[in-house]
């Protein structure tokens, strides 16, 4: 997944105005759907048979539908931690069923399932990150579509996809895409605004996945995901208390 290179700033609302704790999200199942690609991708790493992957996804979804996302009392922390635990449990249950359901299954095979070693967390984290960034890019694009005259997503995307081109070349490229003349200065301005918005959207997206999205926890999550570089230039001096983003100097 191509990643943005942030640069420029503008003041924005703090993260305490972003939506509520994730267990209370009105539509938990839709929320699960949002991260479905990560779930499936992760399962595919250690369940080589696509049928097994689909079976586990099915089991997992049934569990989510039956029991809801998770009880608030049980949950603390990050949605992705909950999700990976639930997915791994579903995978183990599937593997156990497959072994024990087979006539002549050996004890050793059953034991092997119980001691199954899942792929390291980076596999899950990378897929999670991809989904988060996809969501942010999509939100950025929606913003462009909802605001006629704005071509920030197009500009930022062009810059990320063609890192070797200078602003003159990129402006020409965007001109062709948008069907109107874009000068290099206007291009740079749009990129700047898009980066700022990207940072804001990234903070929002990350916050939604946290049980208690304090600025510190958001910052920690952004670092864990490896995307802090896109937000850091926009953190205000009092970020850890206010959660505000600003335009960089």
């Amino acid at each position, binding site marked *: 997944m191509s990643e943005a290179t942030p640069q420029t700033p503008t003041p924005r609302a703090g993260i305490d105005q972003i939506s509520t704790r994730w267990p209370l999200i009105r539509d938990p199942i839709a929320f699960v759907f949002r991260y479905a690609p990560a779930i499936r991708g992760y399962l595919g790493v250690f369940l080589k048979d696509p049928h097994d992957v689909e079976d586990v996804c099915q089991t997992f979804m049934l569990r989510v539908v*039956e029991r809801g996302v998770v009880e608030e009392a049980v949950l603390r922390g990050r949605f992705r931690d909950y999700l990976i635990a639930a997915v791994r449990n579903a995978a183990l249950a599937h593997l156990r069923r497959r072994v024990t359901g087979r006539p002549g299954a050996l004890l050793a095979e059953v034991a092997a399932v119980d001691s199954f070693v899942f792929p390291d967390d980076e596999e899950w984290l990378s897929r999670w990150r991809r989904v988060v960034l996809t969501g942010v890019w999509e939100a950025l694009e929606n913003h462009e579509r909802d605001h006629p005259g704005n071509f920030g997503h197009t500009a930022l995307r062009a810059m990320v996809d063609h890192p070797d081109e200078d602003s003159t070349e990129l402006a020409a490229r965007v001109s062709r895409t948008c069907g109107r003349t874009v000068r290099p200065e206007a291009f740079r301005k749009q990129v700047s605004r898009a980066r700022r918005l990207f940072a804001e959207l990234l903070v929002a997206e990350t916050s939604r996945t946290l049980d208690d999205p304090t600025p510190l926890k958001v910052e920690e999550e952004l670092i864990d995901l490896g995307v802090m570089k896109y937000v850091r230039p926009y953190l205000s001096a009092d970020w850890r208390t206010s959660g505000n983003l600003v335009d960089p100097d």
Partner: protein
Amino acid sequence: MDVSGSPSQSPILPKRKRAVSAIPPVRETPDLGRERLGRYAVTGQLGRGGMGIVYEAEDTRLKRKVAIKLLPKEVSSNPEALARFLREAQGAAKLNHANVVAVYDIGETADTHYIVMELINGGNAQEMLRQRGSFHWWEATSILMDVCRGVAAAHKAGLIHRDIKPSNILRSSEGVVKLGDFGLVKPAGIKGTEVTALGEMVGTPHYMSPEQSRCDALDERSDIYSLGATYFALLTGRPPFNSPDCMQVLFAHCAHPVPDPREIAPDVPEVCTAIIRKAMAKNRAQRHASAAELLADLEKVVALQPANSSGTRTDTRLPAFVWSGADPTETGAVISLADAYPGERSETVPGSKSRRGRFVALGVLSSLLATVLAVLLLGQKGPSPDAQTESSPVADTDWPSLAAEADRAIRSRDVAAMKRALAKVWVMRQRAEQPDGGVPEAIRQTLARLEKALAFRESITERGLVLGFDGPVTGAVLSPDDQLLAIGQSFGDGGAVVLDGYTGEKRFALWPRKGGTIVRVQSLAFDHTSTAVAAVCADDSIKLVRIASGKQSSFDLGPGVKRPLTVMFAPNTNKLVAGLEPYGEGKGKTYLKVWNTDTGKEPFPFKIEHSAKVSALAFTAGGHQVATGSDDKRVVMWNAETGRIWRELRTGLTIRALACSPDGRKVVVAGLDQGSSVLQFWDYAAGTLLSTQPSHHGTCHCVAISRDGKLLASGSGSRVLLWNPETQNLVATLAGHSHDVTSVAFCAEGGILVTGGADQTTRLWDVTRHLSPRPKP
């Protein structure tokens, strides 16, 4: 009859204790009987689904039929939802596009609101998928192109459909594809839980985009996703993610890779797969940006243009024949006489279903476009595995050669050959088309004939193609050149109907009813030139008609003859032989007559001596000898030129039918042995009985051997038995007629058997499989 804007057809899924109830509740709408909604007089109910009830009504002011959908109460009673509905209805009403069901009006009653729409009663794509399985990929592409045009128009007007799926793709009675249920009657005011609320599901999830599954904001590209999923369904007969559990389907939309339609329908070209993959990208930024862009991709498929071609886009509309077709029924494909008789009232076939709305169903287009591609790009064989090498590529072919190829293909009844020829003619048509759309008449006619011949041939299956009539069919005979199929009728209007042997179209009628005079035909025969037909009639006459001139004549049976029983032309001369029943029985009676059909005279005095009526005749392949079978239990074989008797077979059967093998080695005798129907196989030269086979199902009235000698067919009560003449073994039983089979005849080519029955039907059967030698176990 179906209806425009038919209610979303939610899947009927098993109810699960734990999961979301997959059976949506029927939304509460007032149930109307016959009453008025404003100026609309409700005339009947057309459909009922999860999204309300649809009625047929008449606009009493404009005097036209319309469809009216009543809104569910929860939409009507929700002010926000209602306001949004009204805005969208106003937007949809501005749409004036051929491929969108028109919205005429909205209104309200005391209880609810309603929408008045264009009435579409040609069926919908989901119904066709259920009936016929998938569409051919060219058909599917054509359908989706029309849908895309409608969607593009709506997107331009700022509308998003949000529920594109096969059941919302309708077809008018003129064959125009229309997208219905456009952005209307959606519970747009219900947020978030649209797809997750327990016990409730809005519409089918099978075509929903990932963003719909996640309850994110939608845009035009959400419709693109649904178009891609719909395309998948049209090509394969099933949605891309086919779990019965809605949650699984929605999860799959979000997470699972788009399946390859070729895993279900291997004939689907890769280019269609690529289009689906792009349209159904999880990330909507990677989909087609618009319906117009998707349409452009689809147009490239059917226009056979390289992906990067530039220049003027040619007309890519598919020919009208795309929308023709017959519905199969349980007893086989049925073509009513309305098809054989354009413009005439449809005849009903007992037990057959009435025809409903149809989409393309025939195998006319199966692999057609692939063949065209092969013709253009490869220049030689088509892609079908049994393709024969044929003439040079279209570019090098002159029209007379291509016309000859087309004619050969039709006569061969070979599907692959007809498809190849059709593809080439189609390409030539495209190239010959004038700027004003004119096409040379010869090309147009050849194209039409090929289409019809292919459609007809592909309608003939092992289950039998039924041609219905209004009275018992007393004889179905093929002309020696296979071009004509004559079917005699002894009731109704009588006479004989003559169909084109290759297309099934009615060509003309013989001895048509004139005033109160009806010629009741009991049996028929073509002469060896296929230019004359003789008939035994119920008025105890033998009539002859010259097809070209229409000149009619009859033959003098002479005194002492009570009635004719059967007639047969010699295979290579102008002789007509008739089996007769005289008054009384015994020697000296007249049981046979032979005439020269040119002069009407008897060429020689007959000395063939039977002692009972002769009801069975057969010529040998060379036409030199004739076998006659009689109630006197004898088969007499005699020289057709001189009348001299060559051999006599004492069969012990009351003989009803005879057939001689083309190689001259066998005679097959069908008759009754003390009331039981049997077949006897005789060695012709040696005059010895080879075997006797019981015929299980009833009296055998008819028997025929295929022209290559590989198959023998006998009528056995209501069944048709197929035998291997060499081994005298029964190889198959064809069931379909509901009354005695009265005639059997093989086409010269193509493995087709024609049977006539007292059940008022003529049937054509594909018996190709039985002509091939079976592998030894």
